[in-house]
């Protein structure tokens, strides 16, 4: 049987099929949680933001017109849920000790804690120091590999602004990591 599209599942749910929404959740929960984790920096906050994103999406589902892809619409809701949560907490996200290691070791049991998970933790901490608006573009582009057109639509900004924020975010991340900025030789492609 042909796999229903996201838009079809939205329609089915609005027509009374509860399983259709569960299927939408199933398809998108991993990326939504990943975006939330990278945006907030803490597993407990990522949980809250993911939960709020799906609840918010459910409540707004009738307003989904299918003009954008469902995933684009959902990612916009997710990023907004992250912004709301960060504003509510009024603090910079800090990667918690323990939570990250537990989650990522569980997901990748063969990972070497000294290398892969340790590096991820260090970068996540540094990412938390990058301004939210710049961090969002890094997460969506450099981590999630979304295109600039989609990112611009998710964030409601022009493509040029998305690129500019990405550049500023990368620079801020490198500085938070204490990376050498290099001289003219290092900058050549």
């Amino acid at each position, binding site marked *: 049987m042909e796999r229903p599209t996201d838009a079809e599942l939205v329609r089915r749910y609005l027509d009374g099929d509860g399983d259709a929404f569960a299927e939408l959740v*199933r398809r998108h929960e991993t990326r939504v949680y990943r975006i939330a*984790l990278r945006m907030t920096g803490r597993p407990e906050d990522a949980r809250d933001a993911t*939960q709020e994103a799906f609840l918010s999406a*459910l409540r707004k589902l009738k307003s989904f017109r299918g003009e954008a892809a469902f995933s684009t619409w959902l990612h916009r809701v997710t990023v907004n849920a992250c912004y709301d949560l960060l504003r509510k907490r009024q603090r910079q996200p800090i990667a918690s000790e323990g939570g990250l290691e537990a989650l990522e070791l*569980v*997901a990748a049991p063969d990972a070497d804690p000294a290398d892969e998970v340790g590096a991820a933790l260090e970068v996540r901490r540094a990412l938390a120091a990058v301004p939210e608006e710049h961090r969002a573009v890094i997460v969506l582009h450099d*981590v999630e590999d979304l295109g600039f057109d989609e990112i611009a639509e998710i964030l409601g900004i022009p493509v040029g602004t998305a690129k500019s924020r990405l550049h500023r975010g*990368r620079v801020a991340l490198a500085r938070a990591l204490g*990376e050498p900025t290099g001289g003219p030789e290092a900058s050549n*492609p």
Partner: protein
Amino acid sequence: MDRHPHDLLADAVGGTLDAADRAALDAHLSGCAECEGELAAARAGWSAVEALRTSEVGVPFGVTADAVREARNALRARASRPARWAAGLAAAALVAAVGIAVFPRGGEDASGGGAMRATEAATAAGEMKGSDGAADAAMPDATDESLQNLADVAAQAPLPPLAERIDYSGAQLDCLVAELDPGFLEDQVPIQILNARYEGTDALVGTFILEEGDQRLATVRVVDASTCLGMATFLGLAK
């Protein structure tokens, strides 16, 4: 061109500049030490993110449960049917144990609880009968109700012969048990482990029987499949 062409610098790191933009950026870089330095920093930042790109992240169990539950409740409310299961039961499911039924060995309901719905119980029973004890039976989207029915059916069903019970060394069973209580198997007989979805999350659903005197206690337990696998790996149980 802007005083500092940040958009072009972003494309330069990604290697997506066309020839005209490449030439424009090179012309700018030849006279702007600030952008030269920032380009190197941006490349370092981009490389650092590699650690996040390759780091897998597991979705915590039950993180989407509220939304899935609210979606179903909204449809039920729309259909003007009262919810039959308390939210508390669903919350308990996320902790780990769902559905406990106590029956006398003869199979007659001695719990004093509500009557089992025959059709749903038969469905659950059919799923159980169809298993050879391996963890491959499908229960695609478990609900609190279907879990309760599994417990009801397990409490009434005759215990399978020892040879047909689940192999204790099975990784998925080890996962399920390790996640809950290492001593769990000392008293309870595992009847079946099902791969399932529960409230939007991949889960293992296990049915266990404890016989005490003339009574049988049936439990249905739910754990997050990915967490379970990680736990079993940590304990050296997974194959």
